[in-house]
Structures are given as C-alpha cells and as structure tokens.
C-alpha cells in the first residue's frame, strides 16, 4: 500500500507538477503588476493593449512581446531608445513619465503596408506641474496654408541645381535669403523668382540662379543631423517612397492609384520626390505640414505625435536632397 502511494506521489510530482509549475508561474507573472503588451501586425490587431494609463512619476513596467513578425517599441518625441522585439522573445522595460499628458508609442520595423498604423497611447495622469499651454501649432496651420493644393512649379531648371556650382559663383547672398522664416515660407521656385529679380543676378543665366537656390537650401539645411535624417528617411519613408525617392518603394503598388473621383483623400501612390515640378513648387512649410498632418486617407502617415520639430524639419531638408546636388559638408 505504501508503495502505491509513493507511486501516486511520484506521478503527481512529475506528470502534473511540471505543467502546474508552469501555469502557476504564469499566473504569478500576470498578477505581478507588469503590463503585458503584445505586438502584432496591424491587420492582426496591432498593439494589444493599445492604450495604457499610468500616474505621473510612477514606474510603468512593461513586458513587450511580438506574436508574429519583427516589431519594435518606441515612444514618440522621446529620447528613450527603440526596443527591438524579436517574435516570441519578450523584453521587459520600465518607463517613467514625470509630465502628465498623452504619449504615443509606435513600431519602427516595417511589419506590413499598414505598419505606420501600429500606434498606441500612454495616458499619464496627474496635475500638470508646469504650464504647458496649448501645444504649438504646426507652421502650415499658422500660415493658413492649404497643403493639399496643387503646387507644381512652372519654371524648372535644365539640370539638377548644384550647391558646388552655386558656391563657385562667389556671391554673397543678402540677409533676406538667410532668414529661416523666408526659407520656410517660400518654395524653391518662388526663391528662384525672387533671386531672378535681384540686381546681382543680372549677369547670371537661369541655371546659375537655380544653383543659387540650391545654395540657399544648403544654408538652411538643418545642421548637425544630416545622418540621422538619412536614417529616418530609410527607416520610415523608403518603404513607400522608395530608397531613391521615386515613389516606387516596396509598398507603392499596394497603395494604388488615386481614385477615379479625383478624391484627393483616397489611397494614392506615394509621392515621387525626384519629380522636379512637384518638389520645386513646394515650400518647406508645405512639406513639413504634410509630414506632420499626414495624408488624411491617402496612406501617408501623420508624424505629428512621433517626430520632434527638429526631426520633421531635418526630414524636410532631406527630401529636397532628391532635387539638389548637395555636397557633404
């Protein structure tokens, strides 16, 4: 009789013990206060949960795991590092937000054409310590700019405007062109028109004036992070807009052509940054607006909650590099 009890005991310990051990560990995990966040491809649900609440100043422990393909976890407008999520390999991280507000978390590794929709929010509750005031309006709103209006340039250069050639002209540009506001509000074509009308450009031919335009652009190109704007473009834009900016990225065909009704808010093939008419007629404020606001249904993501202002303007400069021959500084 004793041996049969022993046998039964052995059986329970081994046969049931292993699964029970695993199940209870899991149960303990779930009760430990860690928020389990699952990452899935957007058409399989995206982030789950997609909204999290935490009081300001309190530690938020997250266990992040991907349930299907490679994803990553990043927080918009934040310097916290991007966490790569290999499928089935959970990563635990602790976040802490001192300021109340709404923070957006998102995925930075392409996981399908709707990858950009993979976003969630962390709502940090509490009384605001500092008067944050209203969030700053993007420039196009302040200007009342219609960023959906056509902006095809009618005057085009014969060849790509070159900074080197422009610099070789040895001219000193008036302060007007060196003002940041001037640059942001005017398209390259408008700047060309202004330069064309100047006295000092009387001796120059049209192409040389375009080269001066390139010089103006280079002057205002956000200093410092040329490399990181390259990285941002490669990471976030190239999959649709193409590695060479021609609107022929791997997802371009999925996004399809503009609808027959001419509805500008239907899904469209991504913009071609190598198209001179299109780009030279667009002011930086317009491009900045498109990046921040998104395409309203065209498939172009809105990057407002994700990019800092510096990042957005740096990306704008990067886009013009498809038009201008820019030398490394």
């Amino acid at each position, binding site marked *: 009789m004793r*041996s*049969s009890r022993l*046998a*039964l005991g*052995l*059986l329970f*310990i*081994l*046969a*049931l*013990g*292993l*699964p029970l051990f*695993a*199940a209870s*560990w*899991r149960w303990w*995990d779930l009760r430990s206060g860690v928020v389990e966040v699952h990452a899935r491809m957007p058409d399989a649900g995206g982030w789950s949960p997609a909204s999290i609440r935490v009081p300001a100043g309190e530690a938020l422990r997250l*266990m992040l*795991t*991907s*349930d*299907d393909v490679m994803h990553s976890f990043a927080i918009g407008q934040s310097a916290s590092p991007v966490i790569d999520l290999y*499928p*089935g*390999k*959970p*990563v*635990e991280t602790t976040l802490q937000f001192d300021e109340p507000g709404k923070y957006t978390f998102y995925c930075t590794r392409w996981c399908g054409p709707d990858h950009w929709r993979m976003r969630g929010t962390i709502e940090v509750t509490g009384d605001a310590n500092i008067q944050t005031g209203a969030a700053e309006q993007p420039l196009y709103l302040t200007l009342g700019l219609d960023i959906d209006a056509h902006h095809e340039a009618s005057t085009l250069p014969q060849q790509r405007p070159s900074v080197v050639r422009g610099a070789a002209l040895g001219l000193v540009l008036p302060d007007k062109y060196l003002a940041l506001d001037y640059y942001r509000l005017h398209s390259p074509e408008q700047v060309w028109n202004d330069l064309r009308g100047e006295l000092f450009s009387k001796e120059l031919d049209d192409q040389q004036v375009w080269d001066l335009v390139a010089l103006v652009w280079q002057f205002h190109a956000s200093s410092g992070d040329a490399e990181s704007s390259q990285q941002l473009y490669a990471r976030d834009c190239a999959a649709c807009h193409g590695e060479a900016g021609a609107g022929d990225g791997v997802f371009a065909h999925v996004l399809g052509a503009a609808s027959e009704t001419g509805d500008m808010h239907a899904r469209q093939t991504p913009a071609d940054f190598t198209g001179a008419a299109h780009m030279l007629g667009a002011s930086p404020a317009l491009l900045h607006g498109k990046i921040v606001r998104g395409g309203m249904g065209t498939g172009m993501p809105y990057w407002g909650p994700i990019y800092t202002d510096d990042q957005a303007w740096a990306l704008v400069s990067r886009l013009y590099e498809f038009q201008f021959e820019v030398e490394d500084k």
Partner: protein
Amino acid sequence: MNRAALTNTPVVKSLLRSRWPQLFLRALTLGVFLLAILAGILGTPVGNRNIAIVLVWIAWWGLLALLAVPLFGRGWCNICPIPMPGEWLQQGSLLGPRGKGLGLGKRWPNPLRNIWIQNGAFLLLALCSAVVLTEPKVSAWVLAGFLLVAIGASLVFERRAFCRYLCPVGGYIGLYSQASPLELRVVDASVCASHTEKTCYTGSSQGYGCPWQVFPGGLVKNTNCGLCMECLRTCPHDNLSLNVRSFGADLDVPTGRKLDEAYKAFILLGSAMIYAAVMLGPWGQLKALAYGVGTLPWLGYALGFLLVTLVIIPGSFWLVSMLGQVLAGNKDAFKGRGVKKAFTSLAYTLVPLGMTAWIAFTLSFIFANGSYILPSLSDPLGFGWNLFGTAGMGWTPYLSGIVPFMQVIVLLVGLAWASRTALKIARQLASQARLPQEAARRMALPVVAFCLAITILLFQLLIA
C-alpha cells in the same frame, strides 16, 4: 544469427522487471507532454519559441527518427505518455495488478485488426502537418486529441487498442522497428509449448497479459511488440529475453507480410519525399498550398499527396514486382498470379529505404532548427522566463556544410541495405514458387532499380 541477450546481465534484468524506473520515465514524459499542451494553448503563438513546437516536432521527432527507432525499435513506446492515463484508469493501478480497474474491456473488432486506420490517421496528420508543425495552438489541440482518444480507447476496449490500431506515429515506429537491432523474444519455444497457462498473454499476479495483444511465445517480429516488459514479469519460467541482434533481422522472416504494412511502407516513403519537397525545397507556392488547410487549393495538394502515396508509388512498385516475376520465369505473371505475393513481400524492401529516407530528411530539419531547443527549455511558454540561462540564444544553423554529406551517406547505406533485403526476399519467394535460385537475382533487379531511382530522387530533393 548472432544475438546478445541483454537480460543475461542481472542488473539489466532487474531494472527492466522493476516497475519503478518505467513509472518514473512515463510520469516524466507525461509531464513534459502536458506541459507542451499547456504551452501551446497559453504560450506565445510564435512556433520556434514555444516548446509545444520545439520540444515535440524538433527535439522529440529528431530523437525518434535518428536514434530511438533505428536503435531501439519500439523502445519509445515503452515510455510514451499518450496511452498512460487511459491505461492507469483501465488497470486501476500504477504498480501492477491489484484490484479492478475501469472500462468496458471490449474486444477490438476483427475487421479492424490491421493498420489501415493507422495508415489513414498518419495521412491525415501528414496532410495538415504544415499547420500542425508551425502553430502552437493547433499542435496542442492535436496532442490533446491523441490523449483523449487514447483514454477513450482504454475505457472502451481491452488493453492498448490505441497504440496497436489507432496511433498515427505507431505505424511508423512499428514498421521500422523491424530494422532495429533490439528485440524481445522467448529463449526456448519448447518451454512455452508445455506451459498451458500462457500467463504472458493472460496475465498473472506479477503482471498484465500482453497489453499489445501479442502472444510473446510466438513473437517473430518487432512490429507489434511495444517493449513494455510485462511478459518479462509474468513468465514463470524466465523464458523471455531482450536481445541485441543484427540490424533488420525481422526483414528476413518470411511470414506475416501483409498488405496493410506494405502500404504503410509506401505511404511513409512517399511522405518523406513530399515533405522534403515542401519543407526543404525552394517552391514557395507549394508551401502555401500545404499551409492552406481546408481551402480548395489545399484540397488539390492533398489529392496530389494521396495520389503519390497511395497510387503512384504502389502502382509503380506493382509494375516493378510484375517485371521481376517475368524476369524470374513466372509464366503466369501477366495473369497476375504470384504478383500480389511478390508485391506484398518485396514491399518490405522499402522498410530500410524509407527509414533512411526519413533519417536523411530529419537530419536537415533538425540541424537547421536545433538551435531553438536550448532557448525553449529556458523559456517554455515564450513569456520571458530564463530558467537555465539559455533564453537569449539566437537562431543559428548547425553544421550546415556537413549535413549534405551525412545525408548522402545515410541514403547510400539505406540503398545498399534495401538491395540486400530485396535479394533475400526474392530468394524466399523463389524457393516458395519453386523457381531456381538464380531466378531470385532477376526477380530482385527491378526492385533494386526502383530503390536506386528513389535514392536518386531523394538526392535531387535533398542535396541538389
């Protein structure tokens, strides 16, 4: 034939007779099995980070196909967890006969006393394998299904009805166990002749009558002996012995060659080749077809699968057998006389050929994906544990440059072995049909050519 009796060593005999080591191992495998089911249902849906996939279809399958079956025949069946809960309920005990158990104890119906159901079950599993082998939840439900069916079978029928007649893997293990160097046999048949009680089959206070419904006294082949050691416990004359013998000795036994087993050989060989094409080939469309279980395109794939395993391979083997008969001088060959017997008998040539084909396929599969095993042991459910510190290890293929050479060697050994088997069987057929012995070589030649063709096809699929 040379045989070395392992049970002549007292330590071995007492270990095998004792119920404790066996119970320990069975409880362990059951624990891992239940853990795998739990992991599949509760754990991460990513297959290569969940033990429901990694431990079952990579680790266990690798050990089974590469070691357990070729070396120990039905050795796995001794410690397999699937029939155990049902059997413990049926027997009402964990440590030998003690009182009543549960269950209706019905006899397995006579028309089903064959492995046709097992053949069907294996095919069904094989057709769905692209999904079963990659989705933890599906794998878990399949394993749980096996467990429930096995419990049900034990409560309705006597003995191990599930293992003998239903288990899909059992057909594989049973057929290929004929090739293994391990066997359990009586020492002296005359002792059995004078023993009227036949407790090895009927049971005694020391143990149960053979749960596999085999009469140990008459056992000549491994196919249906699950190495459970009950007869070792019940025989009052200590007449049972566990022997090491030469590989494939059972293939020389001229009796008991049946059509259901022959078909199992065709099915297994065909499946190995199709698996190699689908899983190791570069054809993405084929894989998508195999994965879309339940869709119309998948149905086309399934029909193709069944056509190859049930019609094309057996059909060409029939032609080959008929040709062999003609060459051997069987004048009635075209009328079909003698062809069926040759067909069924010579099909056993495909036992070593098929087993090595599966080994070659498994080698590629296991070495390419074996690096998932250590991480999954540390993080069985894929939820961030690190029990043994190996959870962070990434994927890397093992020995990728050497695997093709290993496959070639394995397949060459299989071909030589199959050719040898073909000739031996042909000689038996020749003497039975009263044909001259030289006719045997001519009878075997088409079969050997068939095996050569299959081997070259396998080279194409695996290393070319």
